[in-house]
Each structure stands twice: as structure tokens, then as C-alpha cells.
């Protein structure tokens, strides 16, 4: 793996470089934003570990530049403990995960591994939830063994809900995941429409979609 580490504090960077190197990865260590951007211009990486607080700017800028160039490299952002806004901004700008300082090296390793794995993973495998089963590769779903007829979009919606099972997903996040930029004449109420359709199709199962007013939707299973 080729990893880019953007971190200005020497004492923090050294152990990270050492650990990943030990595991056989190649680590490029940059201490400034400029250096980072230069490196990104010439090299492709499998993972970027990005500190937000850089001497010559914000790591956010690097991230923004990266994403606007449609570069899909996974990014793990290092943030200060109580900086909620920074963290949220980073995730919104396109970071894949974050870690607050001070952190355990082992945790960093684990998350880095997970990120890389996610990249390599083909969407495969069957997900089970209650009496619902979803085959990501085959793009089919079934309830209690009986196939569930779903349109492409409904399937995608179900997939997203399942990925976030038990959690509340806001409507606009669903919108972002379901529709692309080009589909400009679609409004948020399209999401409501699809939720409604999906709900009807799941009426017979033990799985249901809850609407939490003002918050979003939650996939739930009953006993």
C-alpha cells in the first residue's frame, strides 16, 4: 500500500510511519499543505492520513481539492478532541473516517485497514436483517424467503437503510445517495415517495421504516 501521511508534529508522525512501514506499506510523510498538494499532484495513493491543523493552512483545503478533482482515495482525518465543527466539516467535505488526538496507534491501524478493505471489497455478500435478506451482488431482496420486487432505486434505498440499520438517516443524506447531481428536477419529496413505496412493499415483513419527524428515517425490526 502506498500511504500519504500529512502531519506536522514530528513526535506523532514518526511512530505512524514506523508502524505502517513495519507492516510492509510505503509511507510518504509530508509536513505542510503545499508539500502534500505537490505530492498528490504526481502520485496516486491507496490511503491518505490527513491532519487538519497544518502550519500553512487547513488540511480541509487539501481534502476539498482532492474531492473536487474526483479523486476517490480514502481519507482518514486527524482532528482535535473537542472540535466538533471541524470534524463535521471534514466528513461533509468527503473524509471517510476520523480519529481524535490523542489516539492509539492500533486504532489508527485498524481503521486504516478497514478503509482499505472497503475500497477493495466488491459489493458482495448477503445481508440479513430480521426476516429480510438482501443480496448486494445479485441486486435482489427477499422477505421470509419470498422475493421482493423492487425497482433499482427502491433497492438502492433499502441497501442504504440496511447499511445504516438502527440509525436515523436524514432525508437529505438519502437524497444525496439516491440521486446524482445531473438529476436536477427531482425534489426532496421524491425521497418521501420512495420511502412510501418501500414501506408498502415491506408491510408484510417484520422490518419497517419509521419516520422520525424533523430527524429522518430509521429501519427497524420487530420480534
Amino acid at each position: 500500500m502506498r500511504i500519504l501521511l500529512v502531519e506536522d508534529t514530528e513526535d506523532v508522525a514518526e511512530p505512524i510511519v514506523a508502524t505502517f512501514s513495519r507492516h510492509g506499506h510505503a509511507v510518504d510523510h509530508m509536513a505542510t499543505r503545499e508539500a502534500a498538494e505537490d505530492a498528490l499532484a504526481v502520485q496516486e495513493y491507496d490511503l491518505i492520513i490527513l491532519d487538519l491543523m497544518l502550519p500553512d493552512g487547513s488540511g480541509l483545503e487539501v481534502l476539498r481539492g482532492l474531492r473536487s478533482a474526483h479523486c476517490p482515495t480514502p481519507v482518514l482525518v486527524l482532528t482535535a478532541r473537542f472540535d466538533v465543527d471541524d470534524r463535521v466539516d471534514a466528513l461533509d467535505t468527503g473524509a471517510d473516517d476520523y480519529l481524535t488526538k490523542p489516539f492509539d496507534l492500533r486504532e489508527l491501524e485498524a481503521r486504516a485497514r478497514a478503509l482499505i478493505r472497503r475500497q477493495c471489497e466488491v459489493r458482495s455478500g448477503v445481508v440479513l436483517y430480521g426476516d429480510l435478506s438482501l443480496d448486494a451482488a445479485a441486486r435482489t431482496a427477499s422477505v421470509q424467503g419470498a422475493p421482493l420486487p423492487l425497482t433499482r432505486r427502491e433497492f438502492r434505498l433499502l441497501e442504504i437503510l440496511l447499511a445504516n440499520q438502527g440509525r436515523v438517516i436524514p432525508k437529505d443524506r438519502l437524497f444525496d445517495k439516491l440521486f446524482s447531481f445531473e438529476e436536477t428536477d427531482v425534489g426532496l419529496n421524491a425521497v418521501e415517495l420512495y420511502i412510501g413505496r418501500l414501506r408498502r412493499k415491506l408491510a408484510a415483513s417484520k422490518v419497517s421504516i419509521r419516520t422520525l419527524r424533523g430527524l429522518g428515517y430509521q429501519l427497524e425490526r420487530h420480534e
Partner: protein
Amino acid sequence: MNSRTARLPSIAWRLALAITLILGAGGLLITVAAYAYGRQAAGEAYDRLLAGAAFEIARSVSVTSGSVIVDLPTSAFELLALAPKDRVVYRVLDRHGNTVTGYDSVPRPPQSADDVVFYAAEFGGETVRLAATRRRFAERAYSGEVGIVVGHTTRARTALAWDITAKALWILVAAGLAMVALTVFAVRSSLRPLGRIEQAILGRNPKDLSPLCVSSPREIETIVVAINRFMDRLARRVTVMQTLIADATHQLRTPIAALRAQAELAAAEENPERLRSIVRRIHQRTVGLSRLADQLLNQALIIHRADAVEQQRLDLRAIAVRVAEEIDHDLPAMGCDLRLDLPEDPVEVRGDAFSLVEAAKNLVNNAFRHGERPVRLTVETIAGEDRAGEDGAEEDGAEIAVTDSGVGVPTSHWADSGRRFANTAGSSARDAGLGLAIVNAVAEAHAGRLEFSRTADGRFRAALRLPLQREPGS
């Protein structure tokens, strides 16, 4: 950072100006009234003169052989001469309205039943005030009335009216000036306490935040009270910070001491096996120390926010969602086990999002670390209930609660959950205590409380209860 606040004009001057305007307006009214009164008074005075002269002349009228004889009394005219600059007119009329003597051009009086009737006319370009009276005769040769009209120009009465007005005006001006002066003086003297307050504040030691003791009138008292309240809050924050620092120093001292000792040991250790184990211990300590520092900082931040940050309306469910997100992130292996049970409608409270998230996270972390799965995070509205022995009914509340299947906090400790473990540090059980201290602090800052209970199916429940904000209109 604050731009210079504009300097408002002096209170004394503003008041003086306001009073001057009021006095000016009032003074104008009074002048008009005084003139009206003056005119009336002067008019009445000189009318009496006219009436007197008319009566005197009337008295001197006699009838001889059918003709009217008037022996004009000089005294009547001397009476009229009391209005020194005025011209005089008079006319005596017989019963047919013909002139017996006097000025023909004096107009006849209007009809009236009164003894004396007053009216006006023009004479030589000037207005003349006339008084007319009658005398009845019932002689054989003359049966009827004789009319007597006396008049004079109005210079004297107008002069008197103006004189009265002028005098009233002088009094007014004098009174007005006195009032303005008094006001300025009164304002200055009543604002003197502010000077005393200034002296009291400037005179004290900058570190002294004790309440001001300045005797002042009720109106100024509010400022003194406000200043004292402000200083009190400041003093409390200073105390809290001092306590935090003292606390932190105290709590950090032991682990840091231990760390140093271990590091020293490590520096001297030759044996690689033993060295490794020492370094492992050092690592554990630093992790523990890191966590302690986090919690101390957390606590400080929450306390700071309680004082400094304005509370806002927010949906308790959103807090729960964020808690779930952060827990998912922090404890990925355990994340999926946190169930989120939220009502479909918003549950509104007033508070600080950061503090509430931290408090709820503390409860969740405690549940995962010291309790047993499954762990559930819920948000509920609780209807108010009468508490026997407490004053009044309770308001409706909102709760964010964490339930787990473990033993939980022993029932005997439920009463003073937070305070009990406030001053401990380091180990996991004590972590829980400190965490609960933070939750307690957040509860207090939100006018709520931390409650422990057992659910119907025997699970342990730790809840942060807050007053429910009713939606406007509901």
C-alpha cells in the same frame, strides 16, 4: 473588540431641556390664561368705573315741566379720568331716543333688563367701551325712561391687562428658572451615589470580588445589585476554575508520578523482557492519563459552557442521534449493539447540544464498560406527576436514558450519584464516578437531574431528565 459606545448627552442637560420645553409650552398656556384673566379683571375694574359714572350721571337727571334736565356731576367725569389716557364719550337720551345732551354719535344701547348694560362701538378710529343705564320717571308730564350712556376708550384697561400678564410672566420665568436650576441640582445630587460606586470599585484590589457595600437610593441600588451579581458570577467562575485547576493538579499528580517512576525504571533496566513489561505498563498509564485528562477537560468545558454559552431550543432526539454516531465511531466493535429508540415526534428541550451529547455519551460508555448488553439509548417524554411531600406538581419532562442488563449503580447510591465519585481519578470504577459527576453537572446546568431506576423487565436505567419545552401554540 467593542466599538466605542456613543456618549449620550448628560442626564442633567436632557432633563433641563425637557423641563424647559415643558415649561415653555406650559408657560405659553399660562401666559395666554394670564392675559385672558388680566383682560377680564381689568375689564371688570374699568367697567365698574363706567357703571359708577353712569349711575352718578343718572342720579343728577331730573324732569322739570316735561323736559329732562341733566346737571352733570363733575365727580362722574373725575371717576372716568381715573383711566388717565382714555377719551370719554357720553350721551343722555330721552324716552323718544333723542339726545338731551352729550355726543349724538354715541350708538343707542341694546335692549336689556339689567341695571347696567355694557357694549362696544367705534369712535374716531378707536374702540370704545360703553355702559348704559336707565332711570324711570313717572311724572305727569313725563312718563318714561331716560337713558344714560357713558363710555371711554380702552387704553387703560388694555395696559392693565398687559401689566397683569407681564407680572404673571415674570413670576413664571422666575419660577421656571428656579425649577430648572433645582432640577439640575437634584439630578446632580441624586447621581452622586454613582460617583461613590465608581470610587468604591476603583478603590478596591483588582482581585477583590466581594459584594459592594455602597449605600444608595432604591433606583441606584439596581445597578449595585447588578454589579454585585456580575461580580458574584465572575467570582464563582474564578472559584470553579481554581477548583478545576486544583482538582486537576491533584488528580494528575499521582498518575504522572507513577509514570515518571516507571520511565525512570525503564531508563535503568537492562533486561529486555523486564524492559518490555515496564514499557507496557507505561503505555497503560499514559492511556489512562490521557483518558483522565480528557475527562477533566470535558468537565471544565461543560462547566464553562454552563455559564457562558446560551441555551437554545433543540430536539433531544437529535442529541441521541449524534450520540449514536459518535459511539459508532468510537467503539466500532460495539457500535451495532447500541439500539436507538426514538419517538416519531420532536422532544424539545432548552440546552447546550455539546454538553448534552457529552453527558449522554458518558452514560452510554458507562453502560458498555460496566454494564451488560444489549444497551439501549432512548428519548421519552414523561408526564408531570404530583410528588408527595414536594411543593407543587412537577412539570412535564423529557428524558434521554440509557438502559442495560447489568447490575448498575447500587440502589443505596442512587440519592447522591454524582457527588459521590467527584473527587476520584484513574481506575475504571472511578472513571464511572467521574463520568457521572459530569452528567450531574450537565443536569444541574439544564435545570434537570440525573435519575437511576429499574425498568419493569429488570434492566438498569440511567436517565438525564430535563424540563420539556412546549412547542408554541400547542
